[in-house]
């Protein structure tokens, strides 16, 4: 689990000002969270599946594919 990756996502989700800054200048915002190069790359590439794999918080890895089809 990457706490720094989780921290930046939590902050972006709860802090509209920071999210706005991130959209303008992602490198500047990412530099505040001590992310690894791989983590920065995941964010820059908007690699949702890669981020899920990196976080590995829930044990629900891969669940995105299933959950959107609850019909």
């Amino acid at each position, binding site marked *: 689990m990457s706490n720094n990756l989780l921290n930046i996502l*939590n902050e*972006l989700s709860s802090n509209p000002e920071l999210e706005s800054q991130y959209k303008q200048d*992602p490198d500047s915002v990412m530099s505040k969270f001590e992310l690894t190069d791989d983590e920065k790359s995941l964010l820059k590439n908007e690699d*949702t599946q890669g981020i899920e794999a990196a976080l590995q918080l829930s044990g629900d890895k891969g669940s995105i*594919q299933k959950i959107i*089809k609850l019909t």
Partner: protein
Amino acid sequence: MSKGRLVIVGTGMITPKHITQEAINHIKNADCVFYITPDALSTGYLKSLNKNLISLTDCYQQTTHRRDAYQLMVDRVMQEIEKELRVVAIFYGHPGVFVTPSHDLMKLSQERKIDCQMLPGISAEDCLFSDLGIDPGSVGCQSYEATFFLLNKLAINTSSPLIIWQLGVVGDLSFSTQIKPASDGMAMLQNKLELFYPSDHCVTLYEAATLPGFRHRAESVPLSQLSELSINDISTLYIPATTSPEPDNDFVNQWRQLQ
């Protein structure tokens, strides 16, 4: 009436920024919280609200048929309500949009006279309206699930926009927990849409952002190129109107005579 209680809530498309204050309050005060959300970010946040958090995701691993997985989810939630607990069930997006077990839970709870309610959440459709600047109040809006659209003869109104959902599973008739879209599903969809719309009509492939800071996807192409697009599980198709609605002059004249 049972003293158990059920509240069904949605997380919106991005947690926590889309989750409502009403949903948060119910989660915090619940004895037991079931959840099925697609990302670790939401799981971490939900755990911070209530420690008694139970995932329903494993229901998919216990059976091969989606309908059976949904029944497992319903059974698990109902068991806790029968213990007279305050139960919250959390689903991704809006809990009542493209979610079968939430409606099954509501129906069963009502039959058993259990205090229950479903709260609204932010759905992908809500995000689409915002991101693409669409107001369904202007000329209406039609909305169909992709496979349903293929399998049924529908009276498509070309004077109103059309939204086609779940392109990523188009043509999946298996109802298996392992998603199996038809290999030519997008081509079939394009062919059927070309019965209603000109091939050069510009359509937009849309995907809502699912993590904070990320951009939504909005890729516009002529309908003739639809089947060439890269489709993801969360892809949606937006088709603008091609005609103007015909005024109902008979009604207008009759109405004027009554004034």
